[in-house]
Each structure stands twice: as C-alpha cells, then as structure tokens.
C-alpha cells in the first residue's frame, strides 16, 4: 500500500487557519490500512481541531466524511453537492488522492493533512516497511524476491558493498543488509549461481525518463 503519516498538528492548524468551514475527508484504502487517514483518524483529527479552535476562540465548523478511495473519479464524485458548502477540504488521503480531488474540484483548496511516504507492506500490527520504489523494471525473481533498488541503501545490483557488517546495513544498524538477505535466501533456494552474473546498469528511464509517468489501456477506456 501507499503509506503516509499525519502532519504535526501545529502545521495542520496553520493550514486550516484561514478557513471557517472545513470538510475533513478520509480515505478507506491505503491510508486506513496504515492508520493515518481512515475513518477513525478523521474523527480523531477533526475532534482535536475543533477543540483547538474553541480554545483559541477561532471559528471552525467541520464535517467528517470518509470515501472508499480518493484517487478514483467515481468515489470523488460523492463529494459533489456537499463540497460547495465548505471553504476548504482537509484531505487525509495520500498525495495522489489530494491531487485527484483537486482536479475534480479545482476551485476549492484541498489541504493535505498527511505526508505521503512510501510503497510498502504491513509487516505486523503497527509496523510498515518500504519494499518497492516503482522502478518500472521489476526483476525480483533474480534477487530471491528481495528488492535491491528499495532495500539496498546504494541500490546496488551486484552487491553487497564493503560496509555490510553482521548482516546490517552500514547506514542504519537496525536495517538488515538487503544483499545479506538476498544471498542467504538464494543459497536456501539453491540459486546462488544467479550471482555469477554481472548485472548491467539499470534503465532508470523507466522510472524517471520523461517526467511523471502514465499508463494507458485502450481496452479499458470508454
């Protein structure tokens, strides 16, 4: 999923300060999974903001709503009719959702309540780990299903580097060396011969090449 974290409260308070009527909008997908922007988090944030407004004698009226997704037109459309009653929307979606909503309703400020972080997994309750960088050229099968682009701090394809110590990355002693993990698992799978290969330089144009990326499927278009 896409992970995100709520911005510090003082930053959010400053963001909404020009507005009196704010629609607090959550998203039930990725950000709900990482407990940052789902229905409960909307309730929590809205309550805190209302209390702050009362204590600082500022006018603030809020409404809470959570869409199933904020990145798909059909769901965003559910705000039609409702949104004009508000001066601004405080969105608890990821950056993709915030922008998608703004495209449907360009004349109302959509304020980002979260800082979007990474693509990752829920490893266990309360722990999310980055494991994909969207490089556009997935070769996980060659690296025992451990991504060297994401999990190696130097995105080495022919690893490890000389700083790998006791299975830990030199950058952070709490981070396992991705190459230590790859080699260990390749050995367990009997695939160490894959490492005899000298992997050629990556094609970063698949990630970065021509600005923001696009996918078009004509068979899916209306």
């Amino acid at each position, binding site marked *: 999923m896409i992970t995100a974290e709520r911005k510090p409260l003082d930053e959010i308070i400053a963001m909404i300060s020009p507005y009196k009527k704010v629609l607090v909008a959550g998203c039930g997908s990725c950000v709900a999974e990482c407990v940052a922007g789902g229905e409960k988090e909307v309730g929590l944030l809205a309550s805190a903001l209302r209390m702050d407004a009362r204590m600082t004698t500022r006018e603030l009226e809020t409404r809470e709503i959570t869409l199933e997704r904020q990145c798909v037109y059909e769901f965003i459309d559910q705000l039609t009719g409702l949104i004009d009653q508000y001066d601004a929307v405080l969105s608890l979606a990821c950056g993709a959702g915030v922008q998608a909503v703004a495209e449907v309703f360009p004349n109302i400020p959509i304020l980002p309540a979260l800082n979007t972080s990474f693509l990752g997994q829920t490893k266990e309750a309360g722990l999310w780990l980055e494991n994909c960088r969207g490089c556009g050229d997935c070769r996980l099968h060659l690296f025992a299903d451990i991504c060297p682009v994401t999990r190696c701090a*130097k*995105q080495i394809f022919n690893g*490890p580097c*000389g*700083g790998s*110590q006791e299975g830990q990355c*030199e*950058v952070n002693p709490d981070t396992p060396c991705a190459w230590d993990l790859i080699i260990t698992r390749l050995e367990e799978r009997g695939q160490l011969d894959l490492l005899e290969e*000298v992997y050629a330089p990556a094609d970063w144009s698949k990630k970065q090449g021509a600005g923001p990326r696009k996918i078009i499927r004509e068979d899916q278009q209306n």
Partner: protein
Amino acid sequence: MKTESQLKKVLAAGHFAVTAECGPPKGADPEAIVKKGRILKGFVDSVNVTDNQTGVVRLSSLAACVLLRQEGLDPVFQMVVRDRNRIALQSDILGASALGIRNILCLSGDHQSFGNQAQALGVFDLDSIQLIQTARRMRDEAQIIGGEVLTSPPELFVGAAANPFADPFFYRVIRLAKKVKAGAEFIQTQCIYNMDRFKDWMTQVRDRGLHEKVHILGGITPLKSARMAEYMKKQVAGMDIPEALISRMKSVSPKEQRKEGLKISIETIRALKEMEGIHGIHIMAIEWEEAVPQIVEEAGLLPRSINV
C-alpha cells in the same frame, strides 16, 4: 610524451608493488595535496587519491590527481558512484585519461548520510562493479554504455577494492570473482589486522585461481594509538581488529604506542611478502602520511624507482 601507469609496469614485471593513499583538503588550496605528494614521492609506485571520502566535501579526486601528476607521481583516481551518474562518470574517465592519469579505482562510496552533506541525493546510477565493466569497455572496445563509439579510448589500469573482513564471509571471495569477471586488474584490500582471517580468505582466493587473474595488494593502516584501534573496531564498518592487538597496543605507554603501531604494520607487511598471490601493499596512513617513508624503508621495500 606518452604516460604509462607505473603501478601496471611494476606489477607486470613481477615486482612487489607499494601504493599509498592521500586525502585531499577540505579547501581549495593545492599546496595541501602537493605537500603530501612530496612526502610520498620515491617511496611508492602510485598514490591513491580519495573521492569525497565518508561523504565529506573535499577538493575533487580528479583535480588532486592532476596536482600529484604535476609533481611527478603516478596517481590512482578513486571514483565513487555515490555522487555522479553514468554520464559524469564516463566523462571523468575520459578527462582523467586526457590529463595523464593512468589508474582508476572503482568504489561504491560511503553512504552520504555519514558525511557533512547528509541531505544530498545519493546518485548510485551505477554500482562499483558496473563501473569496472564500463571503464574496461571504454578502454578495450572504445565504447560507452549503450555501444556508441568513442573517438579515442582512455588509457587506464582498472582496479577495485575488496574487503575480506565484511559479511557474509563465505561470499566475499565470490564477490572478488565477480569484480575480476567485470574486469578488475588490481585489487586493494581493506586494512589487515586479523591475519588468520586474511590467510583464510587468501586460501579461498587461490582455490578459485583468482590470484592469477588479478593483482592483489594487501591494505595496511598503521595504528597511532590503542584508542584509535578501539575506535576503528567499534565505529568503522567492515573492520576486524582482534582483541589481542588492542591489548598489545594498550600494553605500552601512550608515548610508545605509535612505535608499536608501526612495528605491527612492519610485521604484517613481512607476512604479506611471504604470501602467495599477494603482489604488493597499499598503505592507508590517513593524516599520517609522514609514516609511509619509514614503513616502506623498514619493511625493506626500497628503492622504489625500479626501472621496468
């Protein structure tokens, strides 16, 4: 006048080579590097220049190499892949060759988070092994990545680093084999303190016949003090310093520790000279370049200007 790599000549002639390292200053003054070069001249075959080591901004390796060349030394241009993409790296290889630099050492580089520019973007377009491959291709096939032909190929002796002491241990020799396969012609190892472990690694190296495919130079860093030894053991990744060595350093008074450290280095060099597959030493006496002439002399490695 045609320039040739002194290091390559010495190794090709079957002589025991000596290289040393010097770090450029954190400033624009060329004198700082020239001074170090003058200390080392005559005591080494080639001098490595570090490339923004530890992610700390210093006078560029390429510029420092040129300054050393002007002093009559044979520089080894260290290139890390952390700071520049393939366009810049290939361009610098051409530039280095044009400026008469004949040796390069291809490295990953310490992660930028260690240095004084921790907010910088780490580039890592290529990894060190891909850089080795790229350098060899430019030299031997006059091609850059992608196959476009160069108007004239660079002339370079291509090297890499090896760390026999990092993990996973069993894999370190496979990694060396990969570097050789990618085209490394000489290897400088991480500094050696744990002789047993190093011998173990060399045995595996010889078992794979790698010692016949690449010239290996053993790394030496003289210990200045017991505290330095302890610091390196705890704080520096990929370092293996046995407790016995630290005790040995502690057993002499602080005033005598430098001497003891030099003694240990000499003993290590003597052991390396006897090892099959070791073709030289690489002395990394960072901020103690003055120790190099003494080490080289006491290890019986003078004179250096061998007519090859």
